[in-house]
């Protein structure tokens, strides 16, 4: 072997060894390169209990300021009575006061309706604390002290559990059941929050920095969905799911599902692929829908199945004008 060849072999093997070494270290310590770009989810996660089954986040400010929202608003001018009423009751202007909101569903045994648990809402923004408290007291709420935090406990009506509210930090309000709000106050001084749940945090870290995202256990999603047995049996063993969307002039998003094993993931990919092929055949004569289907990309490796989509501004314009057209044709009938 010549010296030149020996150098090549050593260089090549060194490249492989370094790559494998770095990858192995990353794999064993769970290091994600995305840690360089953002922390593991929003800071409000520290107030969410470790057993939360679903977590959803929305950057309300960006969504409200997006071109898409302006477009929809100008195309379909809605009455703002509801928004004004909410503002009068709580002092919160949804458009300007809330920056972002995090909602978690926690299985507490107090499930009501179709929720797979009790929700806790954590909203960050600019709130008039005095006005909110005064308005709630007008509606029968009472103020109590819990470990130094002021809890506004709403009146229980129609057998529903009472709604409580607390300002956990300046500009951060938590709304939910009394037990959950007390739990959030407890977590403020430390404890096992969702940040200690590696399974959920793995999902949240891997979410793209979307304007809106959700992640959770798939059984929590289907348990209250009243899906027919046939449909539930046909869904290959999905354990976890996550979804994220970016909203600007258009909407781009990704849905990810983690299955029990690779065989289930392959089955799920086959099911989705079949649906996509069927949809493509059905929409071949409709270019506006065909281009939307073209943007659907099926991906994922191992136990992960990912489906990404993109609704470009042109397509949303077409949908908006279709909606306007329908409104126009329905109005004379009404």
């Amino acid at each position: 072997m010549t010296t030149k060849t020996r150098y090549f072999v050593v260089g090549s093997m060194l490249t492989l060894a370094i790559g494998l070494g770095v990858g192995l270290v990353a794999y064993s310590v769970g290091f994600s390169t995305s840690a360089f770009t953002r922390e593991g989810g929003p800071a409000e996660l520290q107030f969410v209990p470790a057993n939360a089954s679903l977590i959803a986040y929305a950057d309300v400010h960006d969504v409200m300021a997006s071109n898409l929202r302006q477009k929809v608003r100008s195309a379909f001018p809605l009455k703002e009575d509801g928004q004004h009423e909410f503002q009068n009751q709580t002092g919160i202007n949804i458009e300007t006061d809330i920056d972002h909101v995090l909602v978690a569903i926690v299985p507490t045994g107090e499930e009501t309706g179709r929720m797979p648990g009790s929700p806790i809402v954590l909203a960050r923004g600019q709130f008039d604390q005095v006005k909110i408290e005064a308005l709630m007291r007008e509606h029968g709420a009472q103020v109590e002290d819990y470990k130094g935090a002021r809890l506004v406990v709403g009146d229980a009506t129609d057998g529903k559990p009472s709604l409580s509210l607390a300002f956990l930090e300046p500009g951060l309000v938590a709304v939910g059941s009394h037990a959950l709000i007390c739990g959030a106050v407890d977590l403020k001084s430390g404890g096992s929050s969702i940040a200690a749940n590696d399974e959920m945090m793995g999902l949240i870290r891997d979410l793209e920095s979307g304007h809106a995202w959700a992640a959770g256990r798939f059984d929590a999603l289907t348990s209250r969905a009243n899906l027919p047995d046939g449909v539930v049996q046909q869904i290959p063993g999905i354990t976890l799911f996550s979804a994220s969307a970016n909203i600007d002039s258009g909407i781009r998003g990704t849905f990810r599902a983690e299955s029990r094993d690779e065989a289930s993931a392959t089955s799920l990919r086959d099911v989705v692929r079949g649906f996509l092929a069927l949809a493509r055949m059905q929409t071949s004569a409709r270019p506006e829908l065909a281009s939307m289907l073209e943007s659907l990309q099926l991906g994922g490796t191992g136990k992960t199945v990912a489906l990404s989509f993109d609704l470009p501004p042109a397509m949303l314009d077409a949908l908006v004008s279709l909606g306007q057209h329908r409104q126009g044709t329905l109005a004379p009938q009404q």
Partner: protein
Amino acid sequence: MAASPANRRPSFVSSVLRIFDLSLSEMLWSRRSVFLALLVGGPILLAVVSRVVWMFGPNESLRINGGAVSGASIFGLMIWLLYVRFIVPILGVFYGTSLIADEVEDRTITYLFTRPIQRGAVLVGKYLAYLACTVLLILPSVMVVFFLMVPVGGGSIAQMFPSLLADLGMLAAGLAAYGAVFAWVGARVKRPLVAGLVFVLGWEPAVLLFPGYLKRATVAYYLQGLVPHAMPQDSTMSLLLQTFADMPGILPSLVALVVLTAGALWFAARTVASREYVLEQ
């Protein structure tokens, strides 16, 4: 009377190692290496460009069919379209068919066959040199592409690492299988390159499109069973491939590739050992 050390015929293994040592340098620094460098450098260049676009372009600037895609998805796409469907089969054809054919064409095979080594060892040694040459170039190339592409769009190296290992193993298995098959073709057929290109660019893509058992007479069928990434939906052909998808499991694919490699190599060695190569004047 015992044979003196000078007259003793070397063992098969030591003959193979000697030929391997001799052939590796020849293979690496030949004219064909320019072609190999282009094949290996292409994906790296593409990954660098994608990375630069992602770093300096607008948010979600990497798109396919208008849809934003993550770096991990693009890496999966590159493994399928560049490595599995193109680079590995083409390298197998060009290098595998030339193992013996080049020696015949250059009329240097006589020098090898007049040495006191088994003829089969010549082919096996050259095959191992081909495998070392291609594996040592392709796998680092995949590694570089992986580290360039996967972090794009917030992808996790830790999460994707097991699939990288599967990719490396799959590509090495593919290079071994294609190389062995075309080493046999090169030892047996007069115009092996044409036959190889027809097999890789004609037979395999055509047969994989149709339902039935014919696809089992390809290497690609078993290789695709080892790819950990979802098959891309890049064309009508891919759509047809997905519609008639009949992917074998990982274990059957591995067994089939091992049997195919060992079988093809054994037949190739037998062919070289028994065939009389007539050198054109």
